[in-house]
C-alpha cells in the first residue's frame, strides 16, 4: 500500500497541474496550425510530472495515460505534428479521464484507459494516416452513427481515427443537417450529452474531482505573516487582560477590551482573506463547456471572460459552479441563434457570450450576457397563462421586464422544444433557488433581437454573516441582515389599524402596501415563552429575493456577526433553516432561511404585487413620489426629511448627548458625531426634554452629521407638491400638507451649511478660465419642484443650466444644434420620453455618444439601475443628495476636460476645475 500522505500530496499536486490544462488545450487549438512552443512545453511539463510521480507510486494506469499524452505533446512541441481540433479533442478527453482518475485515485488502477491510449497512439504513430482517414469522413455523413461501433470496439485504431474526426465534421456542417448529427456525440462515452442530459456534462465530470481533493488551500505568505502578527497582538492583549483582572484594576479594562475587539476584527478579516479564492477557478471550465456545446449545436460562439481575479469565499466558489454552468449552457442553447439565423438578422455569424464578474456594493456581481435573440415577453406570458401559472388579467397588466422574469417561475420552460441541453422545465427556478440559498439574487434583462443578460449577485462570504438575533417563544433565532428590509413595531393601540386579514392570511399595512405576515412561533411550532407580555408587536420585514413579507417575533435582541455552523445530516429537510450559530452565552441560535420560509409558507411574488395594485387603484395619483421621514421637533411642529439622503437612524438616551464648546455632540462608535438641533438654526419651537431621542445620521462633506428628531412619526411616500414660498428659509425647502398638517421639508445640506459654514469655506464656484463660458448642463426633469431645486443647485456652483420638462424637449434642444452641452442630467420617469430612451438615443448617435449622462433617481428605482447602465447612463445620483450630485458632476466635467482640452474648436468646454 502506498503511503496515504504521499498519495494525498500527489493528488493535490496533480490537480494543480491539471487545473488549467483544458484552457491550455483550447488555446493550442485556437492557435492551430501555429504552435506556441512555450505553451505546449508548459502542458508537457505538467503531464510529465504527473506521469513520473504516478510511475513512482505504482499508479500504472495514470502513468500509462500520462505517457501517451506526453508522447503526443512531445510531437507537437517538436513540430512533428500539427494540432487541429481532432487532436485537441482526443487530448481533452484523455485529460478529462486523467482528472477523474486522480479524483478517485484509490481505484485508478482499475480504470480502463485503453481507448484513450489507442486514440493517442493513433495520433502519435499514424498522424499521416490520420489525415487521410479523416479526410473522406465528411462525405460519409449519413454513416456517422457508425462511430457508435467505435465506442464499442475502442481498440480499433481505424475507427477511432474517424471518431476523433467527428467534431470537425460537425463544425463544418451546415445548419440544416446539424440535428441529424446528434447521434454521433451520443455514441461517445465521455463526451457530454447522453440520455441523462445535463447531468453528465464534462464540467460536472471534472467537478467532483475538484470537490473531493480540494481540502487544502494555498495562502500567500503575506497573509500568513499578517495572521502571525495579529496572533502575537492577541496574545499580548490577553496578557494585559489577565494582568488587569488579577490586579483587579478596572481602569485599564476599557482600553484592553477595545484592543481585543480591534485585534479580533482584524484577525477575522485576515482569516477570511485566506479563504478568498479567485472566481476564475470556476470560470475556467466554461470555455470548454461553450466549445463542446456550440460544436454540438452547430453554433459559432465566442466566450469572453472578464473579472477572473475577483475574489470570493471558497464556499461560494464551490457552490456557484453548477448554477453558473446551467446559465451558460442556457445562453448557448437558447440565447445565441444559429449562424444562418444571425446572418439573416444582420448580426455577425459568430455570437458572443460574455461572462463578467465584478464587485458591486460589497457584493460580487456576475453577468452572463449573450447577443442572441432575446426573450419574447409575450411568448412567456402566453406560456405562463396556458400553463396556469399566471391569470390572463395579470398577464395583460404585467410589464415586459416582469414578464421576462417569468423564466424563474417553477415549471416554466422557455425553449420551444425540449432539447438535450436545457429546457426540461427544471431549470431557472432551481438555479434561482440555489443562488438564493447562497444568499444571492438572480435577475434577468432581455431585449428581443439584441440579447439577454442574467445578473447574479452573491455575498462575498458565507462563513460569518451579520445577523439580527430575535426571540421566538423560548428560543432565539438569527436572521441574516442581508434579507432584512426594516423593523416595524406596532403598538398595541395601532394593532387593529395596522394588522388585518386578506382571505385567511394575516397582513401588515405598511405605507399603503399590504405585506403577508408569518408568525414564527406558529409556523415553527416553537414552545411559547412562559409569560407572554401583551404589548407591541415586533415585525421584521424581510425580502427573500422573490417576495417581501413580515415576520412576527416576540422580541428583538442584538445585531451580531455570527459564525455559521452547519447542521448535521438529520436536518437536511429543514428548509426553514440555513444553519446554526453559537451565541455569546454558549446557547445555540438557529439561522433562519428566509427564502425557505417563503417557499414553505407558499408566499409568491405576485401575491404582493396584486395587493400593490389594489392599493394603487385606491387613489394614489401618478405623481412624482418621494419617500420622506416624518417627525415632530416639538409637539405639533411637523417636519419631513427625504429618506434617500439618510444614512441611518439611531435611538439614543439624552444623557449620552454631550455639549462641547457650545456644540452638541454624541460619542458614538469611537468617534464624535456632530449633532444639529433644528430650532437652533431655523424658526421652530424648542424641543421638549425627553429621555430618548432619535438621531438621523446623514453624510455631508465626507463627514457624518446627526439631526436630532425627537419624535419619529412615519415613513411615507408623498407627492412632491411643495410650496416653496411660504416657509422658505435657509435649511427649509418648503412646505407640504401631509395628513392635514403643514409639514416643512428640510434640506439637510443647507442646514449643515447654516450650522457649520466653515465646512464650506473652501468651496468656490467652479473656476472658469477667461474667455471660456462655464460648462453647460442639459437638465431634463418633469417635476417642477425638482427641476427648480437642481437648477438652482447647479447655478449656485457656477454652471449654466438649460432646463427641460421632458426627455423629448431635451432631445429636441440637443438636435437643434443651438447649444453645445457638456453633460446631460436627466430624470428617469418622464411622460413623453423617459431617461432610458433619451440616453439610448444619445449614445446611439456618434455626435453625442461621449456626452456624459447622469441619471437622477430616488432609492425606490434602484432596481432599474442595471437597465440604466445598459442604456449607457454613466452615473446614478439621488435627487436630494446635493453633495454627491455635485461631486459626480465635477467628475464628469473634469473628466471631459482631460479628454477634450478647451483649446479645440468647442468654445464651451469647461475650464479648470480643481
Amino acid at each position: 500500500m502506498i503511503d496515504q500522505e504521499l498519495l494525498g500530496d500527489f493528488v493535490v499536486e496533480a490537480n494543480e497541474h491539471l487545473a488549467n490544462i483544458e484552457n491550455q488545450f483550447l488555446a493550442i487549438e485556437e492557435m492551430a496550425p501555429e504552435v506556441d512552443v512555450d505553451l505546449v512545453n508548459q502542458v508537457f511539463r505538467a503531464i510529465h510530472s504527473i506521469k513520473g510521480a504516478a510511475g513512482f507510486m505504482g499508479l500504472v494506469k495514470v502513468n500509462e495515460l500520462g505517457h501517451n499524452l506526453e508522447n503526443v505533446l512531445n510531437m507537437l512541441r517538436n513540430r512533428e505534428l500539427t494540432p487541429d481540433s481532432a487532436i485537441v479533442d482526443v487530448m481533452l478527453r484523455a485529460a478529462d479521464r486523467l482528472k477523474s482518475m486522480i479524483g478517485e485515485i484509490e481505484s485508478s488502477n482499475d480504470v480502463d484507459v485503453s481507448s484513450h491510449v489507442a486514440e493517442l497512439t493513433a495520433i502519435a504513430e499514424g498522424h499521416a494516416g490520420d489525415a487521410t482517414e479523416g479526410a473522406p469522413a465528411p462525405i460519409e455523413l449519413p454513416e456517422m452513427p457508425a462511430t457508435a461501433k467505435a465506442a464499442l470496439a475502442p481498440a480499433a485504431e481505424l475507427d477511432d481515427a474517424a471518431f476523433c474526426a467527428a467534431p470537425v465534421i460537425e463544425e463544418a456542417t451546415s445548419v440544416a443537417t446539424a440535428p441529424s448529427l446528434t447521434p454521433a456525440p451520443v455514441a461517445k462515452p465521455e463526451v457530454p450529452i447522453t440520455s441523462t442530459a445535463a447531468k453528465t456534462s464534462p464540467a460536472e465530470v471534472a467537478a467532483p474531482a475538484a470537490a473531493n481533493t480540494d481540502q487544502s488551500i494555498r495562502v500567500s505568505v503575506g497573509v500568513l505573516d499578517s495572521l502571525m502578527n495579529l496572533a502575537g497582538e492577541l496574545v499580548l492583549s490577553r496578557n494585559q487582560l489577565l494582568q488587569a483582572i488579577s490586579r483587579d484594576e478596572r481602569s485599564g479594562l476599557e482600553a484592553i477590551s477595545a484592543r481585543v475587539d480591534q485585534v479580533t476584527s482584524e484577525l477575522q478579516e485576515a482569516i477570511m482573506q485566506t479563504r478568498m479564492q479567485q472566481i476564475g477557478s470556476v470560470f475556467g471550465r466554461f470555455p470548454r463547456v461553450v466549445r463542446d456545446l456550440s460544436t454540438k449545436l452547430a453554433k459559432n460562439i465566442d466566450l469572453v471572460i472578464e473579472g477572473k481575479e475577483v475574489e470570493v469565499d471558497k464556499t461560494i466558489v464551490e457552490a456557484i459552479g453548477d448554477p453558473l454552468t446551467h446559465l451558460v449552457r442556457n445562453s448557448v442553447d437558447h440565447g445565441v441563434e444559429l449562424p444562418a439565423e444571425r446572418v439573416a438578422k444582420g448580426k455577425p455569424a459568430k455570437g458572443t457570450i460574455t461572462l463578467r464578474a465584478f464587485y458591486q456594493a460589497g457584493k460580487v456581481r456576475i453577468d452572463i450576457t449573450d447577443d442572441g435573440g432575446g426573450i419574447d415577453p409575450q411568448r412567456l406570458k402566453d406560456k405562463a397563462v396556458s400553463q396556469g401559472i399566471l391569470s390572463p388579467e395579470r398577464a395583460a397588466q404585467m410589464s415586459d421586464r416582469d414578464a421576462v422574469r417569468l423564466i424563474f417561475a417553477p415549471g416554466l420552460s422557455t425553449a420551444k422544444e425540449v432539447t438535450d441541453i436545457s429546457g426540461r422545465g427544471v431549470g431557472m427556478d432551481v438555479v434561482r433557488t440555489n443562488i438564493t440559498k447562497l444568499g444571492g439574487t438572480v435577475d434577468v434583462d432581455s431585449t428581443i433581437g439584441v440579447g439577454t443578460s442574467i445578473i447574479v449577485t452573491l455575498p462575498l462570504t458565507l462563513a460569518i454573516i451579520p445577523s439580527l438575533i430575535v426571540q421566538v417563544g423560548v428560543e432565539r433565532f438569527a436572521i441574516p441582515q442581508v434579507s432584512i428590509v426594516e423593523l416595524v413595531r406596532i403598538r398595541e393601540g395601532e394593532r387593529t389599524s395596522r394588522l388585518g386579514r386578506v382571505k385567511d392570511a394575516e397582513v401588515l399595512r405598511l405605507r399603503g402596501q399590504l405585506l403577508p405576515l408569518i408568525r414564527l412561533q406558529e409556523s415553527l411550532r416553537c414552545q411559547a415563552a412562559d409569560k407572554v407580555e401583551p404589548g407591541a408587536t415586533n415585525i421584521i420585514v424581510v425580502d427573500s429575493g422573490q417576495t417581501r413579507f413580515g415576520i412576527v417575533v416576540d422580541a428583538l435582541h442584538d445585531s451580531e456577526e455570527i459564525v455559521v455552523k452547519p447542521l448535521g445530516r438529520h436536518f437536511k429537510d429543514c428548509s426553514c433553516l440555513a444553519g446554526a450559530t453559537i451565541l455569546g452565552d454558549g446557547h445555540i441560535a438557529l439561522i433562519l432561511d428566509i427564502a425557505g420560509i417563503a417557499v414553505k409558507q407558499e408566499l409568491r411574488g405576485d401575491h404582493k404585487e396584486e395587493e400593490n395594485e389594489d392599493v394603487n387603484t385606491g387613489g394614489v395619483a401618478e405623481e412624482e413620489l418621494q419617500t420622506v421621514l416624518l417627525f415632530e421637533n416639538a409637539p405639533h411642529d411637523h417636519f419631513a426629511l427625504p429618506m434617500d439622503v439618510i444614512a441611518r437612524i439611531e435611538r439614543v438616551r439624552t444623557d449620552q448627548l454631550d455639549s462641547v464648546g457650545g456644540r452638541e455632540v454624541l460619542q458614538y462608535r469611537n468617534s464624535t458625531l456632530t449633532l444639529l438641533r433644528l430650532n437652533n438654526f431655523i424658526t421652530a419651537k424648542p424641543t421638549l426634554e425627553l429621555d430618548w431621542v432619535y438621531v438621523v445620521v446623514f453624510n455631508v462633506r465626507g463627514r457624518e452629521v446627526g439631526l436630532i428628531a425627537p419624535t419619529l412619526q412615519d415613513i411615507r411616500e408623498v407627492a412632491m407638491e411643495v410650496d416653496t414660498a411660504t416657509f422658505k428659509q435657509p435649511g427649509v425647502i418648503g412646505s407640504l400638507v401631509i395628513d392635514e398638517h403643514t409639514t416643512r421639508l428640510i434640506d439637510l445640506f443647507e442646514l449643515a451649511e447654516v450650522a457649520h459654514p466653515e465646512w464650506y469655506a473652501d468651496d468656490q464656484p467652479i473656476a472658469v478660465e477667461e474667455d471660456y463660458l462655464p460648462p453647460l448642463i442639459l437638465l431634463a426633469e418633469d417635476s417642477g419642484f425638482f427641476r427648480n431645486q437642481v437648477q438652482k443647485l447647479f447655478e449656485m456652483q457656477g454652471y449654466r443650466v438649460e432646463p427641460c420638462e421632458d426627455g423629448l424637449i431635451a432631445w429636441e434642444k440637443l438636435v437643434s444644434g443651438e447649444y453645445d452641452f457638456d453633460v446631460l442630467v436627466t430624470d428617469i420617469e418622464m411622460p413623453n420620453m423617459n431617461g432610458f430612451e433619451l440616453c439610448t438615443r444619445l449614445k446611439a448617435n456618434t455626435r453625442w455618444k461621449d456626452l456624459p449622462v447622469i441619471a437622477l433617481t430616488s432609492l425606490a428605482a434602484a432596481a432599474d439601475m442595471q437597465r440604466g447602465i445598459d442604456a449607457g447612463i454613466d452615473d446614478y445620483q439621488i435627487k436630494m443628495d446635493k453633495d454627491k450630485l455635485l461631486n459626480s458632476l465635477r467628475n464628469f466635467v473634469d473628466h471631459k476636460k482631460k479628454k477634450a482640452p478647451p483649446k479645440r474648436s468647442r468654445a464651451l468646454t469647461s475650464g479648470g476645475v480643481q
Partner: protein
Amino acid sequence: MTMVAEPKRTSTEVQQFATFYVGQLLLGVDINIVQEINRQLQVTPVPGAPAHVRGVINLRGEVATVIDLRTVLGMAPAEETRDTRNLIIHSQAETIGLYVDRISDILTISDDDISPAPSNVNGVDGRFILGVHTMDSDIVVLLDVEKVLAQQN
C-alpha cells in the same frame, strides 16, 4: 478518518462495548466510535426536524445533533433524571449525541460470545441490532449505530 461501526468478525478477537440503559433495556455500542459521555442536556430543539431528533447542542463550539434513542426504539418519552447522559459518538465525520437514560459498564466481549440478532429483542427492531450478548442476569443488545442513525420517520 471515519470510524467503522461494524466490528471485524474474526474468531478470537475481542471487542469493547460501552453499555447503557434506555428504559429497562441494556444496550451497547462499539467503544471505538464513542468520543465522550457528558451531562450536557441543554438541547436546542430544531423546528421541522424528524421526531427522533431531540435537537442540537453546543459541544465546545461545534453544533452536534442529539438523537433520542427512546423514540427510535419506539419507547415512550421520559423525564430527564440525574442519570440522563449524552453519549457522544462519531458517525460519517459528524459528531452526534445519543440521549440515554443511564450509563452502565464497558464490556469486553469475545466475538464467540456474540450471537446473531433475532428479528426482535425486547421490542427492539432487528434492523438496529448487530448482535446479542447474554450475561448472567441480563442480555446486552449491541446496536448497529449507522442503522439507528439512518432511521427515518
